[in-house]
């Protein structure tokens, strides 16, 4: 049962799509970086996958996901400890599923958060490789893209490969590739995965009012269609209630330009 779709925003639909990425993961650290991925991880824990571990986005584990922004009467209680040092130990042991928003993604799932353009004198210096090399080679990762376009989904390789992917030529004999586990890509147009032949990217579902051709045109490399190309599910009343409780200041409304509704006019 869903509410009047007029009221549901695209950001809320994306929160639910992000939450699906963690479904059935069991006892792993769920790290959703940014407003929508964090809400997705929290929604997953509060609905279908309560076994997930989460932090307060600082150094403490919580069993009750913490609402975003100023907390009012909400006082967090903690179930354990997870300093950055411990997060690294968790990463290397593989018991984590993170969702981050890289600046560039290529057809092999390689990601870039360091710099765009010539490495010596980049057109745009971003953050740095951060933890992407270690995360991507040790545990499950999903990707979040609030602005699906060819500048993010690049035609060739990303300018600086920070996170590893499935490009065979990058893997020499003896390197363990089997921990690499790229799951879902949630964008403002669709949900994709790496389930095609040779881990090719395929579209699993299109957000309401979006066509496959529109997604392909916004992507720098060829896409496949999933086996049963669906429309991305709208949030249910229960999911919306959880999202509103987790985000009392409606920070999710700031993620997408103009905070568009989930139900868009067909292109």
């Amino acid at each position, binding site marked *: 049962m869903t509410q009047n779709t007029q009221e549901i925003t695209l950001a809320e639909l994306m929160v639910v799509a992000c939450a699906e990425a963690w479904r059935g993961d069991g006892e792993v650290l769920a790290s959703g970086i940014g407003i929508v991925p964090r809400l997705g991880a929290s929604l997953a824990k509060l609905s279908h996958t309560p076994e997930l571990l989460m932090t*307060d*986005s*600082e*150094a*403490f584990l919580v069993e009750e996901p*913490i609402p975003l*922004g*100023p*907390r009012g009467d909400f006082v967090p209680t903690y179930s354990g400890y997870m*300093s*950055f*040092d411990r997060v*690294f130990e968790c*990463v*290397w042991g593989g018991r984590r599923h993170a969702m981050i928003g890289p600046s560039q993604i290529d057809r092999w799932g*390689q990601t870039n958060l*360091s*710099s765009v353009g010539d*490495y*010596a*004198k*980049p*057109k*745009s*210096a*971003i*953050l*740095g*490789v*951060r*933890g*992407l*090399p*270690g995360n*991507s*080679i*040790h545990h499950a990762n999903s990707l979040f893209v609030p602005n699906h376009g060819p500048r993010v989904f690049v035609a060739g390789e990303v300018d*600086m*490969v*920070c*996170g*590893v992917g499935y*490009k065979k030529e*990058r*893997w*020499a*004999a*003896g*390197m*363990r*590739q089997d*921990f690499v586990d790229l799951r879902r890509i949630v964008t403002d147009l669709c949900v994709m995965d790496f389930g095609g032949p040779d881990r090719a990217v395929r579209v699993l579902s299109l957000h309401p009012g979006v066509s496959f051709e529109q997604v392909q045109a916004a992507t720098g490399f060829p896409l496949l269609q999933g086996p049963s190309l669906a429309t991305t599910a709208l949030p249910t009343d229960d999911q919306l209630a959880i999202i509103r409780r987790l985000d009392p200041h409606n920070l999710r409304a700031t993620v997408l330009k103009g905070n568009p509704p989930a139900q868009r006019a067909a292109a």
Partner: protein
Amino acid sequence: MNKELTAAQAIARIESGMTLGIGGWGPRRKPMALVRELLRSDVKDLTVVAYGGPEVGMLCAAGKVKKLVYGFVTMDAIPLEPHFRKAREAGAFEVEEYDEGMFEWGLRAAGMRMSFLPTRCGLATDVLARNPALKTIASPYDDGEVYVAMPAIKLDVALLHVNEADRWGNTLNRGGDPLFDHLFARAAERCFVSTERLQDRLSLSRDDARFNFFERYLVTGVVHAPGGAHPTYLDPDYGWDLDHLKRYNASATDEGGWAGYRGEFIDGDEAAYQARIGGAERLAKLRRPVF
């Protein structure tokens, strides 16, 4: 024993061309009073090693960085560090960019007096391509797995900031996350620690003593610097100063911006800085950031 120094005495031990490690993480627990003293000095050509925050941007803006060893530079609330970006995009310094975990491994290796530690982090990425000196190594055991041999990151000097210390060099880090400051202390030939509160000798309960993360024999000098992490976040004493960080951020785009910031905040001494930002009253108003 008395290791107390002034900030100027500590910074006088840093020479041009040295490799300098700076503790903290992004906009957290940065030894900013020591960094400000370094900005006032004529030291240059530094190799700076940091989980970078505004201190890296300031050192870049002041032209003191010959080479930067880092995994990121960010102020979190303002994700893109403006002066770092400007210098990086201008090719103003040499770049040695590592995964956050490789970086930790490099410090650990140095602290353990190892030449390297093996890790998977960095394999199949451009971190190897952009650091041609990095080598891989195969396991000598039956598995034969190939790893990155992350070389030790040895530091000439480390700068850290703590909540409490004594004149012997005992330190307490009361933050929720001790970060990796202890590894900087272990990796360094000399380590200078600034502190919010300074005593002759700490006399602690067992519970409080657990906030001590590295031994005093690693500490070369202690500098009393209340407010010394401002404008970064010093858990649990004060939050980051977002207004100040915005003012600093604007200094990268305004005409004559850095010179203006420098003139307003850096060129006086630390007492003038603390007075300029509003002193202890201001620090008391800086709430912990809410995530």
